[in-house]
């Protein structure tokens, strides 16, 4: 992307690609593409060297190549499972069709496929869980932050509570959340699994705080002049919040949201391990319990996937932040 824009910039400046422009372009490509590649290569090399020297009870610590093999296996397993599922449904449909042919009034049963969740399914579950938890956190944190930012007295009331709960680890919350969900969420036909809710609420509880704190700071530090403009115009509270407070605090709110999402994603893995929500956390836990010679490779693959997804989530938030921020001059990274 950056290289392309560098090219277009370079050609825009003058009709000809002059030597100095070319140098600039090379320099830019070097910075944006080559250097990260060098970093990754060095990392892989060191990893391989270290892996060769570590022998665990489950065999040698996996190097890049083993992890790559395991990743491929995980994908293959997923595809095999999908084929099985498709075949299952096809068989079931045929059977039902035959039944209906004989007797149009017959009741046909449609059973859901109950195969093993694959790695890809588990990624999807994790993403869904974190999205749900993050959404709850946002819906609570942003309004709470705005109220505390607007009113000094509310802030003074709420601040001790925020400061107390902010440093609490997800593992401490989990047993409580589990019990509360079990007690309150009783339904014969549950839309959500209990483990899903437990994980999501734990995520929400932990990723609430960065957004709350940053929103408070953003709202409390609105330019006095802008507040005075609002007072002179006699804007109502709702309009004041909509027209002045939110736009002005949006950069800080997004800083908080980004931190929250990163925290949430980190917390999720631990929560899933303990709550047995069928996501990446459970995958790692199961592999660990499994203890086959491939386990470490598979866990390492999961670790990398977790890292890459975290990176992608943050990039998405950054893009969103750039899109909604009015201050185009601000440097966001």
């Amino acid at each position: 992307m950056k290289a392309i824009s560098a090219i277009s910039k370079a050609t825009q400046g003058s009709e000809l690609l002059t030597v100095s422009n070319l140098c600039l372009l090379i320099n830019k490509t070097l910075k944006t593409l080559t250097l990260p590649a060098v970093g990754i290569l060095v990392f892989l090399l060191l990893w391989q060297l270290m892996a060769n020297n570590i022998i665990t009870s489950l065999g040698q610590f996996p190097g890049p190549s083993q992890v790559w093999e395991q990743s491929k296996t995980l994908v293959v397993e997923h595809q095999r499972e999908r084929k099985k599922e498709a075949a299952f449904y096809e068989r079931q449909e045929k059977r039902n069709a035959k039944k209906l042919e004989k007797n149009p009034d017959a009741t046909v049963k449609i059973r859901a496929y109950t195969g093993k969740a694959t790695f890809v399914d588990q990624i999807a579950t994790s993403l869904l869980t974190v999205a749900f938890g993050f959404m709850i956190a946002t819906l609570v944190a942003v309004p709470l932050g705005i109220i505390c930012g607007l009113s000094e007295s509310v802030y003074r009331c709420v601040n001790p509570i925020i400061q107390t709960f902010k440093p609490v680890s997800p593992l401490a919350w989990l047993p409580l959340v589990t019990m509360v969900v079990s007690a309150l969420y009783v339904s014969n036909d549950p839309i959500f699994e209990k483990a899903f809710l437990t994980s999501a609420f734990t995520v929400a509880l932990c990723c609430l705080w960065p957004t709350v704190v940053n929103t408070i700071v953003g709202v409390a530090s609105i330019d006095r002049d802008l507040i005075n403009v609002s007072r002179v115009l006699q804007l109502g509270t709702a309009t004041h919040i909509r027209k002045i407070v939110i736009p002005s605090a949006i950069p800080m709110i997004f800083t908080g949201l980004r931190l929250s999402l990163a925290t949430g994603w980190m917390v999720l893995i631990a929560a899933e391990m303990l709550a047995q929500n069928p996501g990446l956390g459970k995958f790692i836990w199961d592999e660990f319990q499994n203890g086959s010679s491939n386990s470490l490779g598979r866990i390492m693959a999961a670790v990398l996937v977790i890292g890459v997804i975290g990176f992608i989530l943050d990039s998405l938030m950054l893009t969103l932040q750039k899109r909604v921020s009015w201050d185009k001059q601000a440097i966001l990274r």
Partner: protein
Amino acid sequence: MKKNYLEISQVGIEFATEGEPFRALQNVNLAIAKGEFISLIGHSGCGKSTVLNIVAGLYEATEGGVILEGREVDEPGPDRAVVFQNHALLPWLTVYQNVELAVKCVFKKSKSKTEIRDWVEHNLSLVHMDHALHKLPAELSGGMKQRVGIARCLAMQPKMLLMDEPFGALDALTRAHLQDSLMEIQQQLGNTVIMITHDVDEAVLLSDRIVMMTNGPAASIGEVLRIDLPRPRDRVILADDSAFNNYRQQVLRFLYEKQKNPATKKIQAA
């Protein structure tokens, strides 16, 4: 012409500070007629902005009060529009939207959608900003931002136009240009204006009366100078005018002889 359109009577204010309260103003009295252009001049920190903020309703006077058209001022409102020292445009709204927000607040019920649009555009063309309707404040020069700030206030059709050093941050050329625009607009619309300035020439050129403030703490109004120059006024012609120069001298004498330095006043008082 009503003599007491705006009446500031016995206004004083104390600010709460860490130690004992700080008395910024004491016994400020001033009556302003409708359509009058008043300049407030005085040394930095004497309390000019504080007077303006009290009239705007943004500060509450500790004693005394302000009466506008027979009604006491107790809160800020769109009938007393403020042009802030550093424009105070909402950075996330375009030029048009900034003015539109103010217009919608004031004329929501009385103007239709198209009328609102025409009115916004009309006011922006008054300050010659109709070419940049859809730019963000960050994309404008300092003078352009200040003009939009003025347009926003004019568009509210306020009873009083309160300006806190509206041209303070501008270069001399832009300032002269905006002063001329402001004179023209005020002549046309007959606004009642209080303007804070540090610039003696500006004060004499624009004002009907110049209010000179004594140094703080407990600042008050020192002298009021009536400027009887015919309008429209032309800065180039007035530059050689003896009456104009006489007025200038009177203001300068007040500022640099009578109110030379806050320290001397204290010594005299003691």
